[in-house]
């Protein structure tokens, strides 16, 4: 990716986004994650098209894992909905942080509907990294291309995992499930160049473990608000004294 890419048209920016998606590390990560997800859906007796539809509509791996395992485990639907919603709280600050990067002078709200729906960890991390190098009027097209590339990859490999499910030995299946936290960890760490982001990452890892171990309710919400706010104030304090 050149440092300041301009494109002849929105279609060219979209194609460049798709190309960035299928050549990034997240391509392999999403393929692995959704092979694991396909295996999970198969194990719980859901249809392969149901999984594909959930990938398009929900488009968040943690929420989909919760959804699949609650259906199979027979958890009450209200409880499943609450768990899904809690896992999705992180999408709110992601959208808030992403949209100002996408918006140009002439942007209408309806142009932002698709990028809003497409916001997920993979797309967010890569958009924050790549968009500053894309000219502002083509950022939405580029980001949509990126997202369509990722979503297509995820849906395709969901089918692959679904039909491979019976063949996977437990150790390899465990290795596939390990792909998600490994890749999320490394890509977040790569993006965390400022002290605030690094601190938020470390505090989130620690608080997430402690609050879950202590069986605190709404643990992810407190992890985010507590760890994030502390990191933010350290950043403000350092700026004020610098």
């Amino acid at each position, binding site marked *: 990716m050149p440092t300041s890419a301009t494109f002849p048209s929105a279609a060219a920016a979209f194609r460049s986004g798709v190309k960035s998606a299928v050549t990034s*590390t997240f391509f392999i*990560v999403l393929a692995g994650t959704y092979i694991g997800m396909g295996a999970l859906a198969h194990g719980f007796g*859901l*249809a392969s098209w*149901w999984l594909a539809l*959930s990938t398009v*509509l*929900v488009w968040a791996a*943690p*929420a989909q894992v919760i959804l699949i395992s*609650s259906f199979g485990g027979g958890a009450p*639907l209200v409880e499943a909905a609450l768990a*899904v919603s809690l896992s*999705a709280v*992180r*999408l*709110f*600050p*992601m959208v*808030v*942080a992403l*949209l*100002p*990067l996408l918006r140009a002078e002439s942007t209408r709200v309806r142009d932002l509907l698709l990028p*809003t729906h497409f916001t997920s960890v993979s797309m967010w991390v890569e958009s924050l990294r790549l968009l500053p190098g894309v000219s502002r009027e083509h950022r939405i097209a580029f980001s949509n291309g990126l997202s369509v590339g990722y979503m297509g990859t995820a849906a395709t490999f969901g089918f692959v995992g679904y039909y491979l499910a019976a063949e996977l030995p*437990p*150790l390899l*299946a*465990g*290795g596939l*499930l*390990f*792909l998600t*936290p*490994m*890749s999320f*960890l*490394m890509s*977040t760490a790569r993006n965390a160049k400022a002290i605030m982001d690094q601190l*938020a*990452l*470390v*505090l*989130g*890892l620690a*608080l*997430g473990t402690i609050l879950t171990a202590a069986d605190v309710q709404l*643990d*992810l*919400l407190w*992890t*985010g*608000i*507590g*760890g*994030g*706010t502390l*990191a*933010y104030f350290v*950043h403000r304090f350092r700026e004020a004294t610098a």
Partner: protein
Amino acid sequence: MNAIWTELFPYVALILVGFLPNEMWRVLGLVLARGLNEDSQIVVWSRAVATAILAGVIAKLIVFSGGALGGIPLSVRVGATVCGFLVFIAIKRSVFAGVLAGEGALLLGGWLFGH
């Protein structure tokens, strides 16, 4: 009637239990992000909160794993994470090298000590 409902149930539940509780946070972000730029303090704070929540999800997936990953001992999972992260730092912050090293360590450790 009952047969149709049994067929449709997973799809209705997908909308009510999966799509809506998930999507509401994105839409809320869209509504509240109007007029903000990327340097405003609320956006900077949101980035810190999003990063911390994501880190919390990562910690939960590694420390409190379910399914096939839960069958591999905790010490192997944590050790593999540390291995992967050290390789990531050592090889110019390469995500690919880090993930590969972590996976290699997990499979080796799981094969030696697991199951």
